[in-house]
């Protein structure tokens, strides 16, 4: 068995207590293996999620349910260098990524 981070969903619960994601445009900085992305995609209108780790981005793509994939985009890149549009997102999420 591989280690499992936060199966209780404490991180996602914290984000949901602080913001409503329903219908929002979300930018996720350092998405890792998509642990939070999948949960946010249940409510958000669109998500742009990225990470500098190619294996993590591949895992994030793989874990996303097919019916939610249409409104989630993944990119490979670092927070310092990735190209992002200005004034496009309602919510930016940093998860252990600063």
């Amino acid at each position, binding site marked *: 068995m591989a280690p499992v981070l936060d199966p209780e969903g404490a991180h996602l619960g914290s*984000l949901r207590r602080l913001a409503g994601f329903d219908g929002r445009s979300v930018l996720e900085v350092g998405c890792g293996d998509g642990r939070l992305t999948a949960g946010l995609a249940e409510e958000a209108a669109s998500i742009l999620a990225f990470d500098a780790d190619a294996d993590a981005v591949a895992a994030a793509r793989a874990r996303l349910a097919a019916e939610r994939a249409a409104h989630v985009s993944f990119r490979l890149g670092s*927070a310092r260098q990735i190209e992002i549009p200005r004034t496009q997102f309602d*919510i930016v999420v940093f998860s252990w990524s600063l």
Partner: protein
Amino acid sequence: MEREDVVHVLRRFRDALTAGGLMLDLQVIRPNPVVEVAGVDVCEIDGSPLFATADPAAAEIDAMIASGLLVEEARDDHDVRKHFASGAELLDDFEDSRRDVPPEWIPRLLELETRCVVRERCRTRRLRQRG
């Protein structure tokens, strides 16, 4: 992330927000992480390598708040758990992490063949773009 990178990244992503948009920043906070076995705390982990990056990031956010670029509206403190099949699996995982198990606990964890958990205290801050 280096301090100048934190400043650069925060400003870039603040600019990515629509007017009045939100930043949610999740960071590890004190106290130190703890190893639990069967719901009982068995040892504390040195979290200082983690705090060495989390503290400057929090300080830069505080500076942006002080300069009027962000407004902190709320905080949510919570525990996050990582589950391991055994003490050996935990130690193996920590080889690549910025956390240190006290040396005196390594032999005991290596002998631990039951499930164990690392519990960390985290804080999410809700920050609204301003200006």
